[in-house]
């Protein structure tokens, strides 16, 4: 034989799914929400999205270059972090906000802990929370930019529907569903987010374990402790409002920061739902999803420890 044969231990075949094409699917799934956000909020939103993605990708590339690590920017994971971070910013934020947030997310949260797969928190959310604590004023100013392209129902002083809800005002659920409200760039349109979510479910990148247990436990918590009794209108407003949908479908399902056990994923979803309810109803701000998820991230080792599956047939009875 003219060429040497390859020899390795079985199995000898591999599925076609790889990390890059999974990540690319997530990027595609985020596009409806991103494009809708840009359409609604205008040129500044576009600038923030581009800057955020560019910052994340270059930070990762530069760090890996100087640390003599393999350059992994082609796996789209930094693109996702950049997109998610931008989608969590108010449209009127100055240009340096996504730059600082992106550097923090990629450098501190992801790379310093060992890069892809090693971060213990969702980098985009950690970046957002970092910005929220450091620049509270900017990060909670949801005034629609003057040059917005969309036709947003501007409420008094740009309050988000959730803030309005918390203040006891009426909200229009239909415009929340379609996205004619104010909020961060990517969270306003429930419909656009759901289109992406259905796509991710269809290509089997995510499954329903975490989303359903998250939404379910949040709804139950709200009905029990929301103070509105069995008010479906109120419940719907909470489900469509704020970052819940974006969080449920795109951040609570982030592989790296979710439990690997199936049972653990249900537990994690339930914990997130309860925490979100707790923060939204009893917390100081109207929002709660970001904090709930990064707090939930910290509980994962514990959840995994107590939800280890029983091996097939283990302890089976002999006849």
């Amino acid at each position: 034989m003219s060429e040497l044969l390859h020899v390795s231990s079985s199995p000898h075949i591999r599925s076609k799914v790889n990390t890059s094409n999974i990540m690319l699917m997530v990027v595609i799934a985020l596009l409806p929400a991103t494009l809708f956000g840009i359409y609604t909020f205008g040129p500044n939103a576009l600038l923030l999205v581009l800057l955020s993605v560019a910052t994340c990708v270059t930070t990762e590339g530069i760090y890996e270059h100087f640390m003599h690590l393999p350059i992994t920017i082609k796996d789209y994971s930094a693109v996702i972090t950049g997109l998610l971070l931008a989608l969590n910013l108010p449209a009127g934020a100055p240009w340096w906000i996504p730059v600082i947030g992106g550097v923090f997310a990629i450098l501190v949260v992801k790379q310093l802990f060992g890069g892809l797969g090693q971060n213990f928190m969702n980098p985009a959310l950690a970046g957002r929370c970092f910005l929220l604590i450091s620049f509270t004023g900017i990060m909670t100013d949801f005034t629609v930019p003057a040059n917005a392209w969309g036709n947003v129902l501007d409420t008094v002083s740009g309050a988000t529907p959730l803030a309005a809800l918390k203040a006891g005002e009426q909200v229009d659920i239909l415009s929340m569903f379609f996205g004619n409200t104010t909020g961060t760039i990517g969270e306003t349109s429930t419909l656009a987010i759901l289109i992406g979510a259905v796509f991710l479910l269809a290509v089997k990148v995510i499954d329903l374990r975490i989303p359903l247990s998250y939404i379910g436990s949040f709804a139950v918590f709200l009905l029990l402790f929301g103070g509105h009794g069995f008010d479906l209108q109120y419940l719907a407003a909470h489900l469509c409002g704020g970052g819940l949908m974006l969080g449920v479908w795109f951040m609570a399902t982030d592989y790296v920061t979710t439990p690997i056990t199936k049972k653990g994923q249900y537990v994690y979803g339930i914990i997130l739902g309860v925490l979100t309810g707790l923060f939204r109803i009893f917390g100081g701000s109207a929002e709660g999803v970001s904090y709930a998820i990064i707090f939930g991230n910290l509980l994962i080792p514990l959840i995994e420890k107590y939800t280890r599956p029983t091996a097939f047939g283990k302890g089976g009875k002999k006849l």
Partner: protein
Amino acid sequence: MGLLSFKGGIHPYDGKELSKEKPIQSILPKGDLVYPLSQHIGAPAVATVKKGDRILVGQKLAKAGGFVSAPIHASVSGTVKGIEPRLIVTGVMSDSIIVENDHQYEKVEYHPTDSLKSLSKEEILKRIQEGGVVGMGGAGFPTHVKLSPKEPEKIEYVLVNGAECEPYLTSDYRRMLEEPELVVGGLKCILQLFDNAKGYICIEDNKPDCIAKMQEFIKNEPRIEVKTLRTKYPQGAERCLIFAATGREVDSSMLPADAGCVVDNVDTVAAVYKSVMWGQPLMHRIVTVTGNAIADPRNFSVCTGSILEELIEEAGGFKEQPKKIISGGPMMGFGLYDLQVPTTKTSSALLCLTKDDVSESPTTPCINCGRCVDVCPANLLPSKLATFANEYQEESFVQFDGMECVECGCCSFSCPAKRPLAQSIKSVRRMILANRKKPK
């Protein structure tokens, strides 16, 4: 009715269309034959011939080296050239009997039986043992041992494994389609040993023609049923098959007999029939020679001891340069680096691929996606086990049930980061097993 199945598993490209329609063709060896003394699980056989001996087809070349062992028979007539170490499919050297073929095919006299009913249970087992029958699905466990559980009356199911869940393989398919009478007959021989057992012939639903054929053949057999399984790898793994067909679970500390089951491969059952009814020992097997590097993929009935290279010539040789040649299926077979290797009782296929997925997909970090957990039929956490294995944390490995791994390879197949999960787990698992066997 829902199809019978198990939890986990994968759906790889099955490649069976390459050789599915090719009828079994008998081929004769050209060069010398090589009979490794160790081609089954258990003690190696002990040679009973010496250099220069004239031997006949069906003559015993080596006797069993213990109870868990099996004799080896000549598949040709000729002269013994010597006994020397030769390379076998697993990549190790094994003492082998080398026979020069005289192409006369002069036979020893077999002792057929007229009726199964006239044989006692002991006689049936004796015939299976003397026939050198071992599990032909791949493991090569001596069949007479499997068929001698401590309490035969507690066996409730005899399962014939016709799942053939490995991609590319079609030898069992052709056997069931072309010689269903051997399979049903062999199952009847085995049922004779177990008074309280029912026989199930288990076939995946991608072989509807086999299912129909078998159903027709068992019309008048009250003790035998055909069970249709969902097409999914590893449906033919013993534990998965038992669960799918009977709903019973077996773990690593149990034998199938502990769950009242006996599982035998289609080809094994056919070999049982031949040795019990015809008195003919195991000396042929069906080998699928296939893969996209092969000019004319085929199913051959091959004399054991034939050199694999000859099979490739019979299948028209290579139409493209192969990158990887595998003895067995792509999920659990052995990669070969040399084709001067003999066919043994357990060689189900020779797969020649022009592409090696393993070397073409670089390993990237684990992203914790959980696909390995979803597909694991043993319900384990392969990504964690592989980490323990790589760091040789034996205690954690055992605590996380690493010893329950069935080595099916589903985790490696499905890993998007292309980590060699099954490979890591397998090596440590075997190291631990080997250490346990060492006398303290």
